[in-house]
């Protein structure tokens, strides 16, 4: 093979497109989705607590504070992978229902639905987080949402 043909062949190899990026979200994508959910939950619980005022039960106050802690933790992980903390999205779905709740029964029902959504989101996210320590951190937040769902459900049933 002549030198010119060799060069052309090599150039052709270099010009080949890089292998397609593996399908599926990146770690940053997964963390970005989770922090958006947590930020929306913080907004929603905050709005519900303001609407309930002095009648707000301690369990919802605690859950609100813990959602805020989750968002802060995820922001730390996002910063570590070079991504900024996103702006809080407008609450949607169960979070929007919680934000609009004006009585305790409606707030608890929406909170249970929201915690169910969060449990499902973290269960789905865990297999998609390659870094072991990030995955372990997400696992502890999954555990927290499972506890929130149980406690708010219990109080909803107890209230009759």
């Amino acid at each position, binding site marked *: 093979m002549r030198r010119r043909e060799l060069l052309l062949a090599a150039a052709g190899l270099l010009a080949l497109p890089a292998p397609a990026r593996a399908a599926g979200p990146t770690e940053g994508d997964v963390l970005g989705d989770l922090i958006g959910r947590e930020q929306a939950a913080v907004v929603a619980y905050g709005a519900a607590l303001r609407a309930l005022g002095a009648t707000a039960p301690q369990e919802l106050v605690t859950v609100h504070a813990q959602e805020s802690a989750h968002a802060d933790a995820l922001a*730390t992980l996002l910063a*570590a992978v070079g991504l900024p903390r996103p702006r809080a999205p407008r609450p949607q779905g169960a979070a929007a229902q919680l934000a609009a709740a004006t009585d305790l029964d409606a707030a608890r029902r929406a909170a249970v639905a929201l915690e169910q959504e969060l449990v499902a989101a973290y269960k789905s996210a865990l297999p998609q987080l390659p870094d*072991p320590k990030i995955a372990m*951190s997400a696992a502890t937040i999954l555990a927290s949402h499972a*506890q929130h769902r149980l406690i708010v459900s*219990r109080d909803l049933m107890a209230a009759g």
Partner: protein
Amino acid sequence: MVTRRALLAGGAAMLAGCGPAKTRAARPVDVLGEQLRVTRLAVAAYAGVDAPALVADARARAGRVEAALRAAGGKPGRAPAGPSGAAAAYAAERRALAAHVAAVGELRDQRELLAGLIVGAAQAQAALAPLVHRDPLASAFPGQP
């Protein structure tokens, strides 16, 4: 200068509450065997506790881990004996939760199973907490090692 990798390791370690990553890869059968051991201890701890739904859930979790262990080529040992009663059950579920969270860092291909175990153990811990005068929502990161 702090590198991005160091930030990542430091931030995640802070959240996970643990030190540097283990350098030796764990064998899946060993990790699953440990998950079965701690879950069976939780099952045993419910003896004398009037909580049929929690007992049934713990047994179901043990069954799922046992199936995964067999599928991985492991052989379940004899069910361990341990203390029982509400306080023992609370402590056993708390230890099981911490073990499941730790296993998430060791077994990527069992995360679906582990997520279900984490939900079950976390809920059981919260449900038992009032029986032992503990706050069911004591931590925003339950299971943190």
